[in-house]
């Protein structure tokens, strides 16, 4: 595979996927080449490979013009380290810090080496994802003394701080925001996450494939389908399992249903956050109709556990297809009316426009991704450029905006609701006959796979390794919020504090998905 001038000796590893192993020095060179070619680093994680006769491993997933390159480097048992990549891809900063907290693998010469996921549940010299760390080892023992997190302080005349969270005033996930403000203007925002860290990655260890699929779907519940599909795609790749056509089409149907549900909810809340309760009530009425139909057709309002290794666990009959198509058409019509109202509402437009701006150049430099990225001219959508089945037969239209403000992120959601509803019509009309599930059986030797799905929030990746006994050895689920959280810190600069909830909602990032 060529990136820039060089051939990087990466082997094809499934559709639009490439796989390679290299020395850490080469990893650094590859990162530079990807950056120069306009690509991104979308995920970085580590592994303990000592039980396989190696040391540790560091893994990166690079987005390039030819697809996703999954690259690994072996690290020594003693003092495992790799060169800092955050000076090339700033978005990887927290991923590097989390990798140290969980595995003791250090990014050499990194500017920011503060802890990230570690608060008080384990000590500085303990590493939960090492195989010799028992998941129960610190259970019931007193919490180690909290070593305070070193926030970056802003000093100056009239500057003061507002600490918010971890428990927030609304129904949202827990995290801490430290605002430095002057008057009502935000001079700096620093996020402190990791509160919902519940040992998800450790929990995967030793599970069978089917149970792992359920856990993957609960990495971030609102992106259940994206994670469970990415996980199953990884497992199927590891087990050389071919998913029946009908199952692949049903998975895409579920993914688009999930996208519509989340976008409807967000469009309602965006209205609510500018005091247009009407918008909330209308969009959530539509969302509720949508969820109830999912429950009736597929047995679950959020389609939990509908995707299983090898295929899907539920089908749709002709009556169901007609019903879903009809509701999709009604919702498309109503959303058109509501969009007209949002467009015409001067108060709403005034609050949305020029609020929480992330300019395209900055978005590219810092790796903004997914729907927020597309609102800042980052025209990446795996369904369009690197489609897996059945998207390769659907001709998906990408929604892109360039103003990078709350309005742009709302516009991308509107466009994606319409496009997803159109796709749902196509998926229902052309749904192939056939089996729902194929056997997905581990090979009996250690094997690995990677799944990559464009979820509603953005590119959702799951990489996994299956042990010789068929259980899960290492699973890393990657939520696009990893890249986007730091951009929220940038997007709020110069805005007033009361606009923070609106800006935050316009990104709608996952806490659980990155706290793991």
């Amino acid at each position, binding site marked *: 595979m060529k990136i820039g001038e060089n051939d990087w000796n990466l082997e094809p590893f499934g559709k639009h996927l490439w796989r390679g192993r290299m020395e850490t020095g080469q990893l650094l060179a590859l990162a530079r080449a990807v950056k120069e070619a306009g690509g991104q680093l979308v995920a970085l994680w580590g592994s303990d490979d000592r039980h396989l006769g190696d040391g540790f491993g560091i893994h990166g997933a690079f987005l390039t013009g030819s697809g996703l390159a999954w690259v690994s480097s072996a690290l020594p048992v003693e003092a495992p380290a790799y060169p800092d990549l955050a000076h090339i891809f700033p978005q990887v900063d927290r991923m590097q810090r989390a990798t140290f907290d969980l595995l003791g693998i250090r990014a050499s010469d990194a500017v920011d080496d503060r802890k990230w996921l570690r*608060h*008080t*549940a*384990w000590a500085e010299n303990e590493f*939960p994802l090492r195989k010799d*760390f028992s*998941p*129960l*080892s*610190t*259970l019931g023992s007193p*919490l180690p003394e909290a070593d305070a997190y070193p926030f970056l302080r802003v000093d100056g005349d009239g500057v003061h701080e507002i600490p918010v969270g*971890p*428990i927030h*005033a609304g*129904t*949202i*996930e*827990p995290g801490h925001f430290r605002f430095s403000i002057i008057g009502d203007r935000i001079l700096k925002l620093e996020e402190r996450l*990791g*509160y*919902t*860290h*519940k*040992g*998800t990655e*450790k*929990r995967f260890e030793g599970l069978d494939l089917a*149970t792992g699929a*359920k856990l993957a779907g*609960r*990495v*971030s*519940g*609102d992106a*259940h389908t994206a994670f469970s599909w990415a996980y199953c795609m990884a497992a199927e790749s590891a087990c050389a399992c071919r998913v029946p056509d009908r199952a692949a089409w049903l998975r895409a149907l579920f993914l688009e249903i999930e996208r519509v549900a989340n976008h409807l*909810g967000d469009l309602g*809340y965006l209205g609510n956050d500018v005091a247009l309760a*009407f918008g*909330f*009530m*209308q969009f*959530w*009425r539509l*969302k*509720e109709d949508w*969820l*109830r139909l999912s429950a009736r057709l597929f047995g679950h*309002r*959020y389609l*939990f556990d509908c995707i299983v290794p090898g295929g899907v666990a539920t089908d749709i009959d002709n009556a169901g297809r007609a019903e879903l198509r009809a509701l999709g058409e009604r919702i498309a019509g109503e959303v058109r*009316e*509501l969009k*007209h*109202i949002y467009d*015409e*509402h001067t108060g*709403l437009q005034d609050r949305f426009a020029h609020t929480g701006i992330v300019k395209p150049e900055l978005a590219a430099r810092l790796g903004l991704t997914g729907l927020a990225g597309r609102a800042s001219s980052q025209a990446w959508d795996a369904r369009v450029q690197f489609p897996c089945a059945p998207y390769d037969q659907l001709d998906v239209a990408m929604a892109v905006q360039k103003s990078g403000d709350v309005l742009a992120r709302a516009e991308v959601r509107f466009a994606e609701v319409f496009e997803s509803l159109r796709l749902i019509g196509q998926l229902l009309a052309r749904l192939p006959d056939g089996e729902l599930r194929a056997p997905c059986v581990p090979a009996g030797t250690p094997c690995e796979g990677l799944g990559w799905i464009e979820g509603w929030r953005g590119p959702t990746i799951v990489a996994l390794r299956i042990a010789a006994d068929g259980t899960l050895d290492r699973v890393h689920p990657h939520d696009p919020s990893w890249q986007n959280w730091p951009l929220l810190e940038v997007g709020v600069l110069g805005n007033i504090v009361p606009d923070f909830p609106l800006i935050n909602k316009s990104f709608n990032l996952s806490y*659980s998905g990155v*706290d793991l």
Partner: protein
Amino acid sequence: MATHLILQKMFRTGFVSEPAPAADLALRTREQHIHADLLGIFGQAVAIRHVDAGSCNGCELEIHALGGAHYNIEGLGVKFVASPRHADLLLVTGPVSRHLEVALKRTYEATPEPKWVVAIGDCGCTGGMFGESYASCGRVANVIPVDVEVPGCPPTPLALLEGILAAVSAGVKTPAAS
């Protein structure tokens, strides 16, 4: 002008909490039952503080859904508040991460008596798939006293309402031993 479009849309939408299809009819009966019961017991609003103590955010989706027009919870006398000091009832999702153990205890202590705790979701009730580990305290009851547990992954909005009712029907509880 947006105003006449909004009014038109509201007029055309009408009241969605009215029974239309058969399945919704059953739901509406239940809502009215809860409504009457709440008024009978409490005679005033029940103020709820939601606490995400480590959930995957699935349960939060259904708490949000409760705020929609179909469920009309404010019409039922149930209101979500921004501070535990204003709350009668804590609606807690789990599993309780060890990183939120202290925050959850403090939230509980900040809630005035009499107070109720409703743990929701399979994780809040049992620890769910995450169980107990170096990072997870498991079920909510492992950390603070719990009055009602509403299982489900996630529990439906209707199940949440039933759980809230079950809590306030238990009457005034003696202060927690802690």
